[in-house]
């Protein structure tokens, strides 16, 4: 079991949200799991926490296709924020479009956070999905 202070789930599909929550239970202890329907809501919340100097999420589960602000737009905005911690972002998508994979690769280069790419269906969340690489060791 891994203790995580804060987790964001950004997905407009209630079934996927249900699944992620269910899969988190056996691996993580977290009192602060927040659900967002699209990138805009998640971004606003994150930016708000940053201004109020509250805990920002350690782990984000991010869908790509969402209304109003999709996953890519969210990442773009996120890069613009002044965040010192390295957030672990798990992109979860049913897309097998090679262009989406390419875009993920491009973002990985310029994003200061850890960007993972996970294709649906997922059946299990590993502890490693909640941990950053051990940069120091």
């Amino acid at each position, binding site marked *: 079991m891994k203790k995580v202070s804060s987790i964001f789930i950004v997905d407009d599909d209630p*079934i*996927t949200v249900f699944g992620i929550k269910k899969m988190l239970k056996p691996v993580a202890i977290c009192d602060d799991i927040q659900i967002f329907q699209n990138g805009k*809501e998640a971004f606003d919340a994150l930016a708000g926490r940053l201004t109020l100097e509250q805990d920002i999420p350690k782990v984000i589960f991010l869908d790509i296709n969402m*209304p109003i602000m999709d996953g890519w737009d969210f990442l773009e905005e996120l890069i613009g924020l002044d965040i010192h911690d390295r957030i672990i972002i798990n992109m979860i998508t049913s897309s*097998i*479009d090679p262009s989406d994979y390419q875009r993920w690769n491009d973002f990985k280069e310029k994003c200061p956070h850890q960007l993972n790419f996970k294709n649906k269906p997922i059946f299990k969340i590993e502890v490693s999905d909640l941990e950053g690489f051990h940069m120091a060791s």
Partner: protein
Amino acid sequence: MKAVERIEQHYLLKQLPQAIALVGLDGSVVDASDSWFVLFGLPPKSIVEVNIFNLLENVVNLNEKLSIQKNFSIRHEMVNDKESRWLETNFTPWYDEKENIKGSIVHTIDISREVKKELEIERINAILKTKSEVAHVGCWEFDVQTENLYWCDETKKIHQVPLSYVPNVNEAINFYKPGYSRNKISMIFHKAIQERTPFNERLTIITQKGEERWIQSAGKAIEKNGEVVKVFGTFQDIHDQVMTETKIKESEQLLTALIDNLPLNVFVKDLDSRKILVNKSECEYLEKSPKELIGKTDYDLYDEEVAKISREEDLEVIKTLKPILGKETISIKKNGQTTNFLTSKIPLFDLQGKVSGLIGISMDISAIKKKEDQLRNLINLTSIQNKKLINFAHIVSHNLRSHSANFSMLLQFLKSEDNEKEREHIITMLTKASDNLLETLENLNQVVDINTNISLKKVPINIYDHIIKVQHSLTAFLDKNEVSIKNEVDQKLVVKSIPAYMDSIILNLLTNAVKYSSPDRKPIITLTTKKLDNKIILSITDNGLGIDLERHGDKIFGMYKTFHNNKDAKGFGLYLVRNQIEAMGGRITVNSEVSKGTTFNVYFNEESK
């Protein structure tokens, strides 16, 4: 006595018109006619002093000749200050009554004129010979009486016979090539004698050495006292000339045949862009005869703008001497007929190497051009279709994958879940996932239908009436949302459309406008039509939330794209509408301002495709 006699005689002789003198044995002139003295340039009274040997001192052995006492004559030249003349003097022995020789009777005649003539003839002959040698023109002469045939040296050379050769008529005729040439010469030669018809023919001979050569033979009868006595003629070797002419003619023929039968328009223009040669194709294209085209410029034949461009090209070629090769040009004739050509213009030089005009070659590529356009359209269409197809394939794979992924995940959970309540929860989720999948499939089906149902026929539809109809079917929905609809469409306006699509388009755009209405004001939807370039545009304007087009412009008509946090938003309506409009050959555009409203413009395609 003696003296008296002498005077009488002298007086008799003196008067004789002929130049006669009596010379004694010692050569002294005993007596002479006045005319004799005149001939020798002497004063008439100086008889006694004159001696013939002195007078004719240049004549060799005159003394001996005289002593032989026989007739003889000599030619001698008399030169005085003014002129020289040729004289001929005859000496006849002079006897007395007893037949004793007394001297000579001298008879002199002036033959200057004859000698001059002889010299002239000699000169003319020399000229003739030279001329004949230089010009390679031989001559011949046939004596009708004796049947002798004379050939000059040149004529012999042409026949390649030795100069010693003596021809006769039969042999001469046999030199001609059997067949046409030999028959012809026999006939015209005969005619020249019989009917005095002159001739001048090009014929072939076979020379002594067996060479076949072209010659020109001319002849003319010469008459004397009304009878043909001779036939005189010339004979010329024209072999090289004829060969060259034949070659030129052959080349010309080949060139003409080639140019005329080329499936290209060929023309030659002078420096003023006047046509000086046109081929068959060019004539056929311009529907004019060569005579009508020669001397014409493009201004006489084409639309002014086209002629101007062409003249500029001509000038460019003439100025730079660089050819224009394979340029795509458009020709518009006076009657408006337009043709696409692949044109080349090449500078033309005269024999001195100076530019004298240009050669033009044009290939009609209208058909190819048309096919190319059709092909390009087809490629464009195909590429659009292909893009749509790929897009659709991604949509399908994405949407179906997301549902199937959910099924897999939920089933996995169900397998390992023991808690009965949680199992029930998962099953509810599964049912929901199944419903979602069904709806997605139904949506995709609708899109496939639009893109495959090309058999649906467009019919004339009154837009105004159709809006009223849809409005009726939406009465409850519209009333609930307190929507006011302003139908300002031209009541008589009719467009060609597929009725079901028209329903869907109006329904979706109306419900869309209501779904995204602003919570701050009651929804007002205005429908208008206008005509632009024969296209009918239906505009649907609302006063709703509006949309940030800079941000979402390219996605607004995409599938499952929603831009507002709205529960009913599925992101399918606009995608469907766009597909339906495009399937009918029209298009849809959008204008919007955030929190002011949105206008959708539907362009109907009036063609019945």
